[in-house]
């Protein structure tokens, strides 16, 4: 028998204090990462180039406008369907530069290798880096190698930095989004994150999910040939579409209105997300871009993206609006609305 309970006195647990140590979520690309940037890195390093919080820095040097960016790659497993840590390391930095509208030119590579990594694995990775660099049209011009004790790394960590030239008349920055602009994506969402998750967790689906890792500088060049009036470019990597759009909405002080039904998501990715209780808008991509463009150029740019091998599923997913500044809102399939918020830490599989 259940006793009568007076639930008017129900109480709640103690507050959790701020994390006193670094937790994985600080590197997850969501709100915890954002807190580190805002409260630690920005105040310590503050300067104009950093303050724009784009995928890389745009610098004026000896009369030229340079794009400069860096990224580190820690991924397990090292090889996965559709790519490897080597492809990510080249394409990721190439894409960060391309998101400034730059033509990527040169990369550096730093490797932190764990003692015990088979030489043939390293050889295979280096081959793939060289191939990825050739495909993207960049040269790897400097590098560094360090080896750490066994047990102090997942085989290998790779850092790449890159520089490129920003053509005249190109001014791409998250602050440039304007109400009325069209929001485009270059293809299906969540492929990379779900490909990694399905191999890492041994999930098997009828169709294998393949990472979308790809260099996007070719597509960006083609888009800039249509018009230089592209307002924002972003590659939605960690934290997915949701985190990138939230960052844009915040820095441009605009709202973004999406339509759930317009979001391109592969059926197998959608199924895997259902199974794990995840949302594809928060899942990482490694070969997709978001373009925010004046509405009059949207059709022509979409057409150009779709003609490119990495953009055939490009789609209009929504618009920039003056309402609800700083927030991303989506219309659900059944006609309701939901706010797509910034991801907090790591996206975690739900219990049931």
């Amino acid at each position, binding site marked *: *028998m*259940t006793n009568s*309970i*007076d*639930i008017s006195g129900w109480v709640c647990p103690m507050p959790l204090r701020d994390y006193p*140590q670094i937790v994985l979520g600080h590197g997850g690309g969501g709100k915890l990462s954002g807190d580190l940037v805002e409260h630690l890195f920005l105040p310590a390093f503050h300067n104009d180039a950093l303050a724009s919080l784009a995928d890389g820095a745009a610098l004026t040097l000896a009369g030229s406008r340079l794009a400069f960016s860096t990224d580190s790659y820690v991924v397990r497993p090292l090889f996965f369907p559709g790519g490897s840590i080597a492809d990510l390391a080249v394409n990721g930095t190439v894409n960060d530069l391309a998101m400034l509208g730059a033509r990527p030119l040169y990369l550096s590579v730093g490797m932190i290798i764990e003692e015990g990594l088979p030489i043939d694995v390293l050889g295979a990775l280096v081959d793939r880096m060289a191939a990825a660099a050739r495909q993207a049209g960049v040269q790897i011009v400097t590098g560094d190698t360090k080896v750490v004790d066994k047990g102090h790394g997942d085989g290998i960590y790779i850092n790449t930095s890159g520089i490129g030239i920003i053509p005249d008349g190109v001014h791409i920055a998250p602050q440039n989004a304007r109400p009325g602009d069209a929001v485009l994506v270059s293809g299906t969402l969540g492929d990379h994150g779900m490909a990694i998750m399905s191999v890492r967790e041994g999930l098997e689906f009828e169709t294998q999910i393949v990472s979308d890792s790809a260099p996007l500088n070719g597509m960006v060049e083609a888009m800039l040939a249509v018009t230089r009036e592209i307002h924002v470019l972003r590659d939605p990597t960690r934290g997915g579409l949701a985190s990138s759009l939230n960052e844009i909405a915040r820095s441009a002080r605009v709202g973004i209105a999406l339509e759930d039904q317009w979001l391109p998501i592969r059926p197998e990715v959608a199924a895997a997300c259902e199974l794990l209780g995840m949302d594809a808008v928060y899942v990482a991509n490694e070969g997709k871009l978001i373009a925010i463009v004046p509405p009059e150029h949207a059709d022509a740019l979409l057409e150009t993206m779709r003609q490119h091998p990495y953009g055939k599923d490009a789609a209009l997913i929504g618009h920039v609006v003056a309402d609800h500044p700083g927030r991303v809102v989506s219309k659900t*399939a059944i006609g*309701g609305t939901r706010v797509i918020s910034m991801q907090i830490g790591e996206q975690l599989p739900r219990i049931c």
Partner: protein
Amino acid sequence: MKYLSEFRDGELVQKLLAEIRAVVTRPWAMMEVCGGQTHSIIRNGIDQLLPPEIELIHGPGCPVCVTPLETIDRALAIAAIPNVIFCSFGDMLRVPGSEKDLFTVKSAGGDVRIVYSPLDALKIARDNPTREVVFFGIGFETTAPANAMAVVQAKKQGIDNFSMLVSHVLVPPAIEALMRSPSNRVQAFLAAGHVCSVMGYWQYEPLAGKYHVPIVVTGFEPLDVLAGIHRIVLQLEQGRAQVENAYSRAVQREGNLPAQRVLSEVFEICDRQWRGIGMIPQSGWQLNADYRSFDGAARFNVENVHANESTLCHSGEVLQGLIKPNQCPAFGKACTPQKPLGATMVSSEGACAAYYNYGRFVPVESIQ
């Protein structure tokens, strides 16, 4: 995606909404018990589409949210022991204990691993015979059969380095506790479809009669939820109080008998503390005498870990339907999913987290 897209069809949703509007004549307050349903309601914006007469009260059915603080503290203590591999469903890692969460233990060197099934934890135990592997066995009747099966397998295979920290909770005693509360406002229940797929729904029949409250077994997709609400409204308007099954593609009256056999082999009923709620007698499962040697709390001597919940937030009132999450003074300010004050903000299925994540602190008019 078959069997999903059909249940998210916009036109059918509109049709069902029209039918609900056609039968409702006055205000009714109903509770969806399960956090999965709360998630679906907010994620799809179902509540915005319902006629204003219908009020949905978000119930205590999120297993992550109601796991008691004390149990979280015990989990944290076990996970910090050097030779232990502590395995858990992913979303338990962020649940705050008195001072920290499992992520913090992991960042301090604890071996905390996310698994998708207790059987994965059992495999880790088999593969690491010199380590102690502990699985965090929480949840409602839904997750219990797999957890019971893992313990049965461990015993059968002699995997002695496996144990489970068990904190299972049961739905019917929670419904009864709510109905007996002096401040109760709930007039009907959407019962959780997946719980009923395991346990059946015959147990709800005495409750419907005793408290004259309609209970409709309901699924999770938009059309499922609306079908459940439709049948509830019909009953309320007609003055009936019966148990009905609006989720017959998954649920039968007697439930899943093989699963129930495993449950009764392993577990026994016990009193259980619910986080944010308090003690509800006979509302939990613990390992019975035959399987007690697999009890992680006893094995690691953490039964003396006790914790007191504070009085800082209003989740009790949220769970009663006395206030909506966004009416709590701490909501979205002192209390966010990143720094939850209360259980209902912890898991994505908690009512407060669902409101926060899907932006219900923004006045709805301004986001349309």
